């Protein structure tokens, strides 16, 4: 039968692939990320930032005196293929496996790394699962938990903008969105005299959220702030419809809507607030961030499209520091050094890891206010209390 022959040929061909020999003076870092499929748009920017950091380290003399060598395997935005990509980079000798920006798509490769006893880092996953609960004790994430974004916006609006009535509008499409609203829910009881004016849900690809808007409009008083837990692409449509209906409340968001590339679709958007780890708009309080943005543009040919570029840089930064401190790439030692990090300064905000949490349940966020369609950093906020891990895991 012809197909058995095809498979036989394939099997033989795969046997002929030899594992490339690993040079003794190199540390291999494996990127098991999406180079095609819909995750590519989210993985590539963070991956480019990670490669910039690797380049910086190599130019400064390398890690433990050795050059870092990046190797790549495409997950094709497919879970089964992701596991194979993880195996592929591990077979090339990777000491660190970097996986996709999303827990569901990064976990298969991360699980392979975990079984092989290697450290894995999620490029920018913001779910509590991207770490110990969802993979294992050697897994970390380079970004900040989605819940922190919701909690940050609620506390900032309460303290700085005197918002007292909040409306919670959740896009039930992804776990990320639910994470933002979980953080919001946790923060609300901590804000005295604040009240939840109402709550509703919609789905990202709904052609119209008219009924949800009707509910908001029929409240006796317009809420001070609407906590909008959503992400691209449906966020644009929702925001358009909210403003078109004449609702003037503050709109509070997660970082998922960061970026100016979509602002054309909602002309003269105002009273719109987004938390970011650092500013892509050139007005970050830290001049080194603006320098990085320029370097990013030189290397990739375009400005950073959103703040999700930055966690890629941060993860290489903290991992390299841990390796330097542990003086080895041995997994247990590196993990121990990472877990010692408390408010470790990085270019894009402090990072803290511990034995119980390999993610950030508190973070310094810059608040970007969009007025008349122009985004601008107006403030900076860190939530007053860390969000408890048990609360997040149980959600």
């Amino acid at each position, binding site marked *: *039968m012809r*197909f*058995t022959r*095809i*498979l*036989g040929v*394939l*099997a*033989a*061909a*795969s*046997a002929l*692939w030899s594992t490339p020999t690993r040079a003794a003076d190199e540390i291999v870092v494996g990127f098991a990320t999406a*180079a*095609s*499929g819909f995750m*590519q748009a989210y993985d590539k920017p963070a991956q480019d930032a990670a490669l910039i950091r690797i380049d910086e380290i190599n130019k400064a003399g390398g890690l433990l005196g050795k050059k870092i060598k990046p190797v790549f395997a*495409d997950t*094709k935005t497919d*879970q*089964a*293929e992701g*596991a*194979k990509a993880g*195996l*592929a980079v591990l*077979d090339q000798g990777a000491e660190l496996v970097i996986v996709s920006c999303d*827990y*569901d798509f990064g*976990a*298969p490769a991360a*699980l392979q790394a975990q*079984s092989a006893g290697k450290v894995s880092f999620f490029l920018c996953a913001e*779910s509590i*699962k991207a770490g110990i*609960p*969802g*993979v294992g004790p050697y897994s970390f994430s380079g970004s900040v938990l989605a819940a922190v974004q919701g909690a940050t916006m609620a506390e900032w609006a309460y303290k700085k903008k005197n918002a007292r009535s909040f409306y919670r509008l959740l896009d*039930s*499409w*992804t*776990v990320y969105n*639910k994470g933002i609203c979980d953080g919001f829910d946790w923060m609300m009881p901590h804000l005295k005299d604040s009240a939840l004016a109402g709550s509703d849900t919609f789905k990202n690809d709904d052609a119209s959220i008219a009924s949800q808007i009707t509910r908001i409009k029929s409240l006796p008083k317009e809420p001070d702030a609407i906590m909008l837990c959503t992400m691209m692409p449906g966020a644009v449509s929702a925001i358009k419809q909210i403003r078109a209906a004449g609702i003037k409340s503050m709109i509070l968001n997660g970082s998922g809507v960061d970026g100016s590339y979509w602002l054309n679709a909602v002309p003269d958007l105002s009273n719109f607030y987004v938390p970011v780890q650092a500013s892509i708009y050139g007005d970050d309080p830290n001049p080194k961030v603006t320098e990085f943005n320029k370097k990013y543009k030189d290397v990739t040919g375009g400005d950073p499209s959103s703040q999700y570029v930055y966690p890629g840089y941060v993860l290489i930064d903290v991992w390299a520091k841990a390796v330097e401190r542990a003086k080895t790439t041995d997994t247990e030692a590196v993990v121990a050094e990472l877990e010692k990090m408390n408010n470790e300064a990085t270019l894009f905000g402090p990072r803290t890891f511990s034995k119980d949490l390999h993610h950030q349940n508190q973070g310094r966020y810059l608040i970007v206010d969009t007025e008349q369609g122009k985004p601008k950093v107006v403030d900076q906020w860190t939530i007053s209390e860390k969000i408890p891990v048990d609360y997040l*895991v*149980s*959600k």
Partner: protein
Amino acid sequence: MLQRPSVIWQTIATPVMLMVALLAIAALSYQFGSRAFNRTVVEMFINIMVVVGLYVFVGNSGLLSFGHISFMCLGAYMTAWLTIPPVMKSITLKGLPTWLLHTKLSMWVATPISGVFAALFALVVGRVIMRLSGIAASIATFGLLGVVNNVYSNWDSVTGGQGSIVGTPATMNVWNGWLGAAVAIAIAYLYSISRSGLALRAARDEAVAASASGIDIVRERLVAFVVSAFIIGLAGALYAHFLSIVNPGSFYLRTTFITLSMLVVGGMYSLSGAVAGVVVISALIEVFRDLEKGVSLGGLTIALPNGVQEIAIGIITIVILMYLPTGLTRNREFSWRGWPLQRHLAQPVQTALKELN
């Protein structure tokens, strides 16, 4: 009176050949393949189980079903509930009943239970849906897929919602995979030579005449629905063990259409077609993925641009169907040329009166 050879003796060449061919693939892969290649082969075996399950219903009844992947979802989640260590379950899946939270079974026990769970669900739902015919039935199964997907994506306390639940032991290898595929093929074969299978095929070809001959079409369809759900439930369970994480998104439209494509490309009305379709399409996908990774010829690496694999598979599917509209096997079954008194499993009859829906 001359003893006529039994149906089994006449037709057993087909499933035996299929199982042997798959065993050869498993052995070759185990011996020579890289770890990643072995995973590809396991995935192929699981797809074979799904498509064979689809064949049991679609091939025998002639009704296209878009909802069977919901059984895969049910099977996968049931296995996850039964095999994830209780410590992990208690944190994330608080809505589960206590006895389920404390259970931890091995893959060998949990998998048949998941299959039975899917089959029971199919029994309940099928009693309602199987009365429909033609495209109405197909849309109803589509509705079933939508309902199951929506419920599993949002019932956070029991299914973990859209987030993946992790912890199913990764116990799959090519031999387990082959065993699963062999079991699926065996069940499908036994069903198709059974009285119920024959009756359903008669109804498929000529519903009015079959009904006039005393066949209870609804009942036979229900039997096929339940058997196919069992097989696909088993496949779902093995898939959970393969990936170690389960997520409702993997059991929705994309998987539905890919498995249906594999069935139609292979030959909708034959068991060999189901297996052949999966093997050929899996091989083609693998070839294109390797081409995307790059082939070194001498010092040069030639690689297709990323993303070409999916486009190529779409185009190739169309081309195959253009020239072979009844599929690769043309609805015939494989058999061994030298097999004594061989008889093919019946092909669909070309009827004079075409059903108007």
